[in-house]
């Protein structure tokens, strides 16, 4: 097929692009764009976490408003990134803040869903026992529900991070920096090497960030939970996967 030969050329061009030192320097260079991209991502993820984690913990712990919350956060997933970002740009009079808010809005649902599901999924018997032993509401939240929610909560956070890394490239459309510039600018002049390089680095950034968060997850998720998950997985007939290992269960979208 002709595509084979064409692809060959494209990848040659891509390597040439990557080899050009001009693409690695200055404001438009890959390192700077990657740092900008990382910056937006962290800002958005932290911002979303600051909203979604307390809210998810509250709703999960108190059991109040769960249905409304789940419905709302599902609706938020349907928000089109491009529409949200352009709208907020215009409303915020062109400041970057509008766009960051857009990214935060997109990162909230997965974190919220993960946190809420994590608290909800904590074994009812365990929570009951905690209550029966005389733990107060706060003690139960911090000593039992939060530690048990961590696997799903971190799953939600990882989803959010992946999503924001991808979405932040669309934000280049309203003038933000980041690796999305390579995509959009490359596209305007049909410079496929540039586009491919952009895609490559965004994917790379996503993978790296996910690895870092996975590492963080290993550190903060109590060992006992991992042991428990492994014990479930080992049972030959219990083919059901432990929740803790399936953060994707909360669903993902991308941009």
């Amino acid at each position, binding site marked *: 097929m002709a595509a084979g030969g064409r692809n060959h050329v494209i990848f040659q061009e891509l390597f040439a692009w990557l080899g050009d030192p001009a693409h690695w320097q200055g404001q438009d260079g890959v390192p700077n764009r990657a740092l900008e991209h990382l910056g937006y991502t962290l800002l958005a993820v932290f911002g979303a976490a600051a909203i979604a984690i307390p809210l998810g913990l509250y709703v999960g712990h108190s059991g109040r408003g769960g249905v409304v919350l789940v419905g709302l956060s599902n609706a938020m997933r349907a928000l089109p990134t491009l529409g949200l970002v352009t709208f907020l740009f215009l409303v915020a009079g062109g400041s970057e803040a509008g766009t960051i808010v857009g990214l935060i809005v997109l990162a909230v649902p997965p974190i919220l869903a993960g946190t809420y599901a994590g608290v909800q999924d904590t*074994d009812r*018997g*365990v929570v*009951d*026992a*905690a*209550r*029966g*032993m*005389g*733990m*107060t509401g706060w*003690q139960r939240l911090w*000593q*039992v529900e939060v*530690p*048990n929610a961590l696997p799903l909560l971190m799953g939600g956070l990882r989803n959010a991070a992946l999503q924001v890394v991808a979405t932040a490239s669309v934000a280049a459309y309203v003038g933000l920096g980041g690796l999305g510039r390579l995509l959009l600018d490359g596209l305007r002049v049909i410079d496929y090497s540039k586009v491919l390089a952009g895609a490559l680095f965004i994917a790379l950034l996503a993978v790296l960030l996910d690895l870092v968060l996975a590492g963080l997850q290993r550190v903060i998720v*109590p*060992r*006992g*939970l991992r*042991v*428990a998950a*492994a*014990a479930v997985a080992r049972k030959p007939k219990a083919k059901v996967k432990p929740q803790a290992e399936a953060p994707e269960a909360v669903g993902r979208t991308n941009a």
Partner: protein
Amino acid sequence: MIEFQAVTKRFDDGTTAVDNLDMSVEAGTITVFVGPSGCGKTTSLRMVNRMIEPTNGTVLVDGEDIRKSNPALLRRRIGYVIQQAGLFPHRTVLDNIATVPLLSGWTRRKARARAAELLELVGLDATMGKRYPAQLSGGQQQRVGVARALAADPPVLLMDEPFSAVDPVVREGLQDELLRLQADLDKTIVFVTHDIDEAVRIGEKVAVFREGGRLAQYAAPAELLSNPADDFVSSFVGKDRGYRGLSFLEADGIELRGVSTIGLHEEQSSTVGGLDWTLVLDEDRRPRGWLAPGAVVHGEPADEELRPGGSLYTAGTALRGALDAALSSPSGLGVVVDDDGRYTGVVTAQQVIDLIEERRKEAA
């Protein structure tokens, strides 16, 4: 002591889970709540530590209305054990046990030391302390659950079907363990189960609940089996209750008889025992089987000659074992052994029946 005074619980959806319950649980005893599913056992239990608040009526613990105490503080004074233990999966066994002491403000060091003590008390190895719950078997988890409930030395212990998730053999071990513990600790224990066998085995008093959360009978197990209050109770306690009731009849007064015996490794020249059955014992005088009347043995009795014995009756235990030993023995003579399993005599079914009849007459 725990008192329920005209306690009723109606849930929001209209279900009456407990209906006008009036009973008191004596201090220092194991009281078992038993009954079919949905009859309000759990609800009654949980009203004691205010996990559920009654709709009407009053619950007193040691004479004090529990509504007067702060729920969290009340609960720290009441041990609580549930099915599948409800252990914290994210904490080690030792930290699980130390939970209530830590909540009550003990130092971590002291709480851990206490936890280690309790681990031993419930018969677990000290090395288990560092494991996580998922690394224990079901039975071990239940032991940890009990240890955790005992950690702050609460006078009252609530146990909701604590052993129902483990298999029958382990379960019996746990029941024995609980009885052994209680002999030392003398707690006021309320134990929920839906298994009548467990109830009569463990309880000093048994409360049978019927659907709709009403108390059908509250009595000692022997009384329950011999004298069920009504058809519901009698059908609930099951059809072997006559036989099972023998578990509560002491065997004292039964006279052990003798039978001719031979050692397993003693050489026998020819016919043994003539017209009677002969019991074969090993070096330690533990029964190994019977030789039928007129059996001819040269040298050691061969396996074909040896008829397997029936169940063994340990002297001093309840009549149930004695009757079964007699019924299951090929000779009709139930073999009686001491605590070490050594032969001490035989009994017949006739003796057991006579003793039962005698007791019945005395009671009348």
